[in-house]
C-alpha cells in the first residue's frame, strides 16, 4: 500500500502545486509524442457487438486526435491472453510482445501481477484523466478483488451484479437468495446460471456465498484450506437444494451471461443476470430482449467490482497504450459508454466533481427503461479475495461438474 499512498501524495501534490503539475504535463507531453504513430493491440473480450462498436469508436477518436492506431483483438477468453503473455515471458521475450493492452480484472489481474507479467507500477495514476476517478466512493477502482492495483491497471467501468426478468411472466421478483430458491422451487426449469469457471457463474457462486456465509470477513482474506469446507458448507447446502429445480435439472448450464440473456429472451428462463446494470436497457434498445424486461437486485446487496485495462510488461507500444487508457477515462468517453444504446456501462468517474459541462452530459442521460437508478442499486458487496475463485470452482466442479461416476 506504500506505493499507493505515494501515488496519492503525488496526486494531491499535482493538484496543489502548479510546479509539479507542469512537470507532470511535460511527462505526459513526451508520452504523447512517443505514442504518435504507434499501433496498440488491445486484447479485449469480443463477444458483444455493442462493446466492439464502442471500442471501434474510441479507436477512431485516438487515431484522429493523437495519431495512435488501436487494433481491437477480439478474444473469447481473457485467460488465453494471460497465457499468451506468459508464453512470451517463458521464452524470454522481454520486449515487442504481441499484447499492448488488456481488458482485465480479478483473478486474471492477480495472476499477471503475481507472475510479473505487468508493466511497471504507477503508470495508471499518471494519466491526466486519473484526476476524475472516483477513488473515494468507488474503492474498487484501486483494489481489484482485494488486490491493490498499484497503478498497474487503469479503471474503465463499474460492474454490479443485477438480475433481469420479464415483467410479463414474473410480477414480483425475489428480493434475496432464499426468495430466488423459493421461486426456482415453484417454477422448475426456469432459472440457471452459467457454468463455473465461466466468470458469471463463479460470480453467482460468490454472491450466494456472501449471502450464506456466517462471517463475510473471511472472504476478504485468502482461502484457508483448513476451514474452507466449513465456510462453504451453507453455500453447497443451498446449491444442493437449488439444483434439482434448475433449467435442465442442472445437467447442463448456459455457456455465459450472453447465452443466459438469450435464453431469457426465448422465455426458456425467467431470470438472468448481468454485471452491467445497463445491460437490459441496452439489449432492449438493440432488440435482443423484449421491452418488458426489467432489472432487480437483492436487498442486502450484490457483488460489485471494477473492470480495468492493463499493460503487459513487454508491450511494444506502452506510450500508445497509455494514451488510449487515458482516453477511455475521459469524461467524453465515459459518458458515451454509459449510454444504454451504446453500451450502458457505469462510469468510474466522480460525476459530482466533474467540470460543469462534462457533469451535464451525465446528468441529462436517459438510462433506459430497464435500468435501476443509482440509489435503487442497493449496497455493493466487495469481491472476495481472488483465491476464492479457483477454490469455489474446484469445489463446484467436484460436486456438480463431474457427472455421475
Amino acid at each position: 500500500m506504500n506505493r499507493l499512498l505515494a501515488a496519492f501524495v503525488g496526486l494531491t501534490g499535482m493538484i496543489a502545486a502548479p510546479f509539479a503539475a507542469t512537470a507532470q504535463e511535460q511527462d505526459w507531453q513526451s508520452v504523447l509524442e512517443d505514442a504518435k504513430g504507434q499501433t496498440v493491440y488491445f486484447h479485449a473480450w469480443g463477444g458483444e457487438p455493442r462493446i466492439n462498436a464502442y471500442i471501434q469508436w474510441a479507436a477512431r477518436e485516438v487515431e484522429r486526435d493523437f495519431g495512435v492506431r488501436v487494433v481491437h483483438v477480439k478474444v473469447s477468453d481473457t485467460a488465453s491472453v494471460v497465457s499468451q503473455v506468459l508464453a512470451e515471458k517463458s521464452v524470454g521475450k522481454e520486449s515487442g510482445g504481441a499484447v499492448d493492452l488488456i481488458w482485465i480484472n480479478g483473478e486474471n489481474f492477480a495472476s499477471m501481477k503475481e507472475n510479473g507479467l505487468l508493466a511497471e507500477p504507477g503508470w495508471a495514476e499518471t494519466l491526466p484523466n486519473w484526476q476524475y476517478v472516483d477513488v473515494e466512493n468507488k474503492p474498487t477502482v484501486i483494489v481489484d478483488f482485494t488486490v491493490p492495483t498499484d497503478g498497474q491497471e487503469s479503471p474503465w467501468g463499474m460492474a454490479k451484479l443485477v438480475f433481469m426478468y420479464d415483467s410479463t411472466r414474473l410480477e414480483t421478483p425475489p428480493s434475496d437468495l432464499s426468495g430466488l430458491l423459493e421461486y426456482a422451487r415453484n417454477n422448475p426449469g426456469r432459472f440457471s446460471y452459467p457454468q463455473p469457471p465461466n466468470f458469471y457463474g463463479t460470480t453467482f457462486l460468490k454472491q450466494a456465498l456472501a449471502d450464506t456465509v456466517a462471517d463475510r470477513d473471511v472472504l476478504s482474506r485468502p482461502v484457508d484450506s483448513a476451514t474452507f469446507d466449513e465456510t462453504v458448507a451453507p453455500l453447497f447446502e443451498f446449491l444442493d437444494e437449488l439444483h434439482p429445480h434448475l433449467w435442465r435439472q442442472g445437467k447442463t448450464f448456459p455457456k455465459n451471461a450472453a447465452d443466459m440473456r438469450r435464453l431469457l429472451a426465448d422465455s426458456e428462463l425467467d431470470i438472468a443476470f448481468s454485471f452491467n446494470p445497463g445491460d437490459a436497457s441496452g439489449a432492449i434498445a438493440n432488440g435482443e430482449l423484449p421491452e418488458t424486461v426489467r432489472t432487480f437486485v437483492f436487498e442486502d446487496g450484490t457483488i460489485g467490482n471494477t473492470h480495468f485495462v492493463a499493460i503487459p510488461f513487454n508491450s511494444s507500444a506502452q506510450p500508445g497504450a497509455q494514451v488510449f487508457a487515458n482516453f477511455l477515462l475521459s469524461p467524453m468517453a465515459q459518458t458515451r459508454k454509459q449510454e444504454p444504446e451504446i453500451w450502458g456501462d457505469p462510469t468510474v468517474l466522480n460525476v459530482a466533481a466533474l467540470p460543469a459541462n462534462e457533469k451535464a452530459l451525465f446528468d441529462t442521460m436517459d438510462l433506459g427503461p430497464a435500468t435501476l437508478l443509482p440509489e435503487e442499486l442497493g449496497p455493493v458487496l466487495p469481491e472476495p479475495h481472488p483465491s476464492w475463485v479457483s477454490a469455489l470452482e474446484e469445489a463446484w466442479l467436484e460436486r456438480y461438474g463431474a457427472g455421475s461416476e
Partner: protein
Amino acid sequence: MPKATGGPDIPTILVVSLLAGPVCAGLAGTVLPAFGYLPVLGYHTFSLAPFWELFRMPGLSTSVLLSFGTGLAASILSLAIVLLFTAAWSGTRTFHRLTRFLSPLLSVPHAAAAIGLAFLIAPSGFLARLVSPWATGWTRPPDLLILNDPAGYAMTLGLVAKEVPFLFLMTLAALNRPHIRDYYKAGASLGYGRMSTFFKLILPQIYPLIRLPMLAVIAYSTSVVDVAQILGPTTPAPLAPRLVSWMNDPDLAKRLMASAGALLQLAVSAGALLTYLGLERLVTLWLTSRFESGHRRRGDALGRQAALVPMLLVIAIMTASLALLGLWSAARSWWFPAALPQRWGIERMFDAFGMGGPALFATLAIAAAAAGIATALALWLLEARGHRKVPLRGRLNTLIFLPLLLPQISFLFGLQMLFLLAGLSGSFEAVLLAHLIFVFPYAFLALSDPWNRLDPRYAKAAASTGASRARIFWQIQLPLLLRPVLVTAAVAAAVSVGQYLPTLMIGAGRIVTVTTESVALASGGNRQVAALYALLQLIIPLVGFSLAALVPSIVFRHRAAMRLER
C-alpha cells in the same frame, strides 16, 4: 526441378522436415512440461506430479470416455452412412443430384454448422417453433435436455453432419478410377445386387483410398474443441475442451497438468484409432468370408431405401442449419415461438462487413498463400517421385500425414513456444507456416490419387518429342490435371480457413481471421452476429470450390475429353 535419382528422395525429406519437424518439436514442448519440466515457471525437475494432479481431476474418466466414444461413434456412423448410400445409389440420378448438394456442404466450417444445428434442434429452436404452439401447446420452450446432453448425442450428431460430406467426397474421389463401372457391371451380370456388388467388389478396391481420410476423421473427432464447446456435454465436458480451458487457466501452474492432459488426449485418440483398426480387421475378415458364399442379395430394394434415409437427413439438417444462419443474419429480434423473425435488421450486416472486411482479407491472404504453397509442394513431391528409379517406401509417406493423425492440441502448445523462441510468433509468415502444417497433408491427400492415375504415356509421348522435364510438367501434366489441382487448392484453402487454434496461438491475436473473430463473437450471445460471421467464414471456401468447378470447364470448353465424367 530435381534430377532423376535413385538416391534419397530430397523433396519428400525436405517437406517432411518442414512439416513433421515442427510437429515433433511441438510434441516435445508438450512432453517436457507433462513430466514436470518447465524452467520458465520454475519447474526444473522431472516428476510424475502433473499426471497425478490430472488423474485427480473430477470427472476425468467420464471426459475420456466421452472423447473416445463420441469421436469414434461419430466417425464410424459417418462412414457407414456414406458407404451404405454409395453402395445403394452410386451411378443413379439420385446419386448425382445429391452429390451436387454435398460438395458445397464441405465448405461449411465445423463451428458454423454446429451453431446452425444448435438453433435447429434446441427446445427453443426452429423445429420446436414450427410446431408450436398450435400442435404442441408450448407457449414457452419445454425444459428438454437436447443440446449439451451428458452422453454427447447432440455432439455426435453435429460431428456426423460435418464428417459425412467429407468422407463422401473422399469416397467419390476414390470411385473415380478406371474400370469401376465395369466392376459394377461384372457384379450385376453375375447376378449380384447393387449393394452386394459394392461391398464385395468395389469397396475392397477403393477402401485403401478412404482409409487415411477415415483415420484423420477419427483423430479429429476424438479431439475436437469447437463442436464440443457448442454441442457437447459440460458436466463434465469431453477431454479436449477441458484441456483448452486448463491451458488457458490464469493459474499458470495448470499448464503442467494441461500438458499431461494433452498426452492423455494423444493416448485417447491413439486408442480410438487402434480400436478402429481392430474393428476394420474384424469386418474385413467377415466380409472376406462372405466372398465365397455366392449369396447375391438381389432383393435389396428395401435396404437401398433405408440407406437413403440417413443421407437425406444429413443433407436436410445441414441445409436447414445453413438456411437458419442466413435467416438469423438478417434478424434483429427472433424469439420463441415465432417461426420467422419478429424484427428484421440488416444494419448489423453492413457492420459485419465493415468490421469483418480486414479479417476477411487476412483470411483470404493466408488461405490463398497456404493453398498455393501446399498445392505447389504436393505437385513438386509427386513430380519428383515420378522420376525415381527406386520405388518409395512407406515411412516418409506416413510422416506427411502425421499432422492429420495427431490431435492438434497435443502439440500446438509446444509449437507456440517454438514459434515464440524463434521470434516468429504473431507474424503473417508464422501463421502461414502453422497453417501449412495442417493444410499440406490434405492437399497431398487430394492430389496424389489423380496424379498417380494420370496415364504415364502422355509424359512418355511428350518426352519422345524431345520435351524437357519442365516442359512436360508445365505443358502436359499440369494442364491435364488442372481440375484436380484446382480442387486441391480449394480443399487446402477451406482447411486453412477452418484453422482456429493455430491461428489464435501462433498469430498471438495479431493475425485476425474471420474464424478467430467468429469464435470470439460466438462467445457472446448475439445470434445475428454469430450467424453473420459463420456465413463470412463460408465465403472463401465456397468461392474456391466454385472456381475449381468453373475454371476448367471454361478453359476446356472445346475439349470434349477434358470434361468431367461422372
